[in-house]
């Protein structure tokens, strides 16, 4: 459990989070985050807010996001509210998710 980075519901974080080392790679956000996040797996839970940039292998969004996402696979669940730009290879959007912005493929060709 020490390898997972969990940001609890009422917390506010502002800055740069880098979780790309081999020891731990998962970030779960339930609180409020502003800034940049680099990780392998990112999960933004329902009720969370995110403002900034995400670089990850796989991303799941259930909260409110404003910003840019660059990820191999992306899932927007029914509670997601997204505004910004998406760069991804695999995309899934559940019924009910609010998405506005641009969506493009990560690797062209």
């Amino acid at each position, binding site marked *: 459990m*020490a390898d997972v980075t969990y940001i609890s*519901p009422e917390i506010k974080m502002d800055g*740069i989070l*880098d*979780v790309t080392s081999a*020891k731990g790679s998962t970030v779960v956000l339930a609180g409020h985050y502003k800034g940049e996040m680099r990780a392998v797996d990112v999960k933004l839970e329902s009720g969370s807010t995110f403002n900034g940039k995400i670089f990850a292998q796989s991303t799941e969004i259930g909260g409110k996001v404003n910003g840019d996402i660059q990820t191999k696979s992306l899932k927007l669940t029914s509670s997601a509210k997204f505004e910004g730009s998406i760069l991804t290879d695999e995309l899934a959007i559940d019924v009910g998710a609010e998405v506005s912005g641009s969506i493009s493929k990560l690797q062209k060709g």
Partner: protein
Amino acid sequence: MAEKMTTIGAGAHFKGKISNASTIEVSGIVEADVTTEKLTINETGKFGGSINSKLVVVSGSYDGNMNADSVWLMPSSRVSGEIKYKSLQLDRGAALNCRVIQNWDEKVIPEQEVAESEEQKASDSNNKQTSAEKA
């Protein structure tokens, strides 16, 4: 309670600001200013920055200004900077290279009042001087 705990994992590196927290556990590297109720720095954890907390438990390394009611420094801890505390437990083996201040009265006398009373003293002594000159 587990829901309210924020964990910075062993491979994580965070730089920035953390606020509105209740319990934080650090196993990775954190460079931040934090206000919380309980903060734990695990053996693999490294923390740099100011801490304002009720309880701080250090097993890893810390550098910065800490202001806490209770501080517990475990045998594997390495601390530098400054610690302001009400009660302190220091285990055998803890490496402490810092300024340590016991601050029972800090909350009773806010800094501003201290500054004001010092100004008052200064103006009082000035008045005394002028009255002495007059005499």
